[in-house]
């Protein structure tokens, strides 16, 4: 097990180098960041040269990358064009996104599994039909439509919540954005759980559990649910990363200054330091989440053993 984890951690190194390089090249391909900053006006050549020198933009691309990479190991992720070190930007926005992402994750896991379990157990009956119709609707509605609608209804028209999230993103204000962010995944979790539960309900070991005279509650929680959750956990794990990186739309609607918000700013300004920095951390979050899923797999299903 320990060896396995170590091997997986070592595998992250080439992935890390590869992604940073890839993102670096892609940002470069976007065009000249200096020109982008000055808009229609031609930049003053002296100022432009000064900025180029400051951000190493005058050096060959490979050297830019090497210098950038060297910086990372000393904790220097470069500087945004605003003059703020990217590391500070990340320190400010990551906690916000983490809070939002985890809120969404908890909502999607708890509500999704509960709803999926209930419809799986009552497959074909009214509860199930309603739940399935509901998830289908949620999947079909684009996140921004749902976000703006709920923001308008709850925040503006009925004024039961603040329409935008205040600075520092307190947890109670993140519930609605979290729900919006979780919505589509929640629908998937519900459907996945339902299928898995309905399938396992017919399994021989469930019949055995019933034949043992166990109360239905115990049959469901101890025997049925644990087996049914194995595929759901895979989805939840990979989705954890997606929630962090994909919060852009939700963050924009509710004015949450998290990772997605800052990443978008970076892309607009073609700041390689900001974009590469944020994406790199996102990639690491993905990788770690995947590793955790694989480890959790072995806990849930003893037939899987890592060596």
């Amino acid at each position, binding site marked *: 097990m320990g060896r396995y984890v170590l091997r997986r951690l070592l595998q992250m190194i080439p992935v890390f180098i590869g992604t940073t390089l890839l993102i670096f090249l892609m940002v470069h391909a976007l065009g000249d960041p200096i020109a982008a900053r000055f808009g229609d006006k031609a930049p003053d050549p002296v100022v432009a040269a000064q900025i180029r020198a400051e951000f190493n933009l005058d050096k060959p691309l490979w050297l830019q990358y090497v210098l950038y990479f060297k910086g990372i190991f000393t904790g220097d992720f470069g500087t945004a064009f605003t003059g703020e070190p990217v590391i500070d930007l990340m320190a400010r926005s990551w906690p916000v996104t983490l809070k939002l992402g985890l809120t969404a994750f908890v909502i999607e896991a708890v509500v999704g599994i509960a709803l999926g379990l209930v419809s799986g157990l009552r497959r074909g009956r009214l509860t199930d039909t309603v739940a399935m119709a509901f998830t289908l609707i949620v999947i079909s509605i684009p996140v921004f439509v749902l976000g703006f609608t709920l923001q308008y209804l709850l925040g503006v028209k009925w004024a039961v919540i603040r329409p935008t999230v205040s600075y520092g993103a307190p947890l109670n204000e993140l519930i609605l954005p979290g729900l919006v962010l979780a919505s589509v995944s929640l629908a998937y979790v519900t459907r996945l759980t339902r299928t898995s539960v309905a399938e396992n309900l*017919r*399994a*021989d*070991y469930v*019949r*055995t*559990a*019933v*034949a*043992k*005279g*166990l*109360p239905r509650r*115990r049959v469901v929680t*101890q*025997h049925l649910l*644990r*087996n049914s959750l194995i595929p759901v956990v895979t989805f939840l794990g990979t989705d954890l990363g997606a929630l962090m990186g994909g919060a852009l739309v939700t963050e924009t609607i509710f004015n949450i200054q998290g990772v997605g918000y800052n990443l978008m700013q970076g892309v607009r300004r073609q700041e390689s330091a900001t974009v590469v920095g944020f994406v790199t951390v996102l990639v690491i979050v993905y990788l770690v989440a995947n590793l955790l899923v694989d480890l959790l797999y072995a806990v*849930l*299903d*003893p*037939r899987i053993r890592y060596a």
Partner: protein
Amino acid sequence: MTTTTEKSVNPQAGKAGTPLLEVRDLHVEFRTRDGVAKAVNGVNYSVSAGETLAVLGESGSGKSVTAQAIMGILDSPPGFVTQGQINFQGRDLLKLSEKERRRIRGAKMAMIFQDALSSLNPVLTVGYQLGEMFRVHQGMSRKDAKAKAIELMDRVRIPAARERVNDYPHQFSGGMRQRIMIAMALALEPDLIIADEPTTALDVTVQAQVMDLLAELQREYHMGLILITHDLGVVADVADKIAVMYAGRIVETAPVHELYKQPAHPYTRGLLDSIPRLDQKGQELYAIKGLPPNLLRIPSGCAFNPRCPMAQDVCRTDIPVLHPVTDSRGSACHFWKETLDG
């Protein structure tokens, strides 16, 4: 057509006392999208304490469905008991509430399933699954339940029980897994055990070991045993009496040795003739022609008539009752006398 077997042979005749379990005129149907499948159509049988009843039949004959109805673990819907009684220790199980039936399941009657690998929960240790019986039915602590689980594993002769109690089902061999199933059924020393093809998934050598163990434990605890099988070889050594099922009915019932010596139903004869025998080496093996009937469209009259070498017109119109052949035997064939002599 459902009253046919009502006042037929009482297989208990000659024995004292009421039987442990008595199934009377049991009907089970499955309401599917394609129609109603009549899986069990008026089954009667009984088992006394210490007795072994073998229920023999092809797949789809209703032998397992009857057992599931007795245990109360029928998939419902689509399965429904539509008629009959299941008297167990003086109570009709079909009249009990689900809660009362649950208390009986596992504690007073237990079931051993065919494929132990899929019948045991893959993600829980065998110790947990065994101990669960004591924790749920007797409110035992986790620790005490584990000690009991080890004791049970010893009882069914699983080597190194203490070390293996925390292992998972997939870490055991097929024979050992089936022993765990047996241990689980035995845990609360039930009065009745239903074994549904307990050795089908096992190697022949292991089959014998598991069967011997089951028979030994049954004797020791003086339990009633219903052994469901399609394997005539398994039956001969352990069963006291046999009920042969076809299309949801019992077509013949007899003490085991009498049935082997002289079958009174053409279907039973066909089954016996299709056992490979050493003294007929080199000859072509007999096989009953045709296929088991579709339960959605059971043939009129005797359900076996399309496959029966002795079928006459009456077989296609009248459902035969279970005629008493002797005090302890019955045959649901219009021509049971001819079959017996044949």
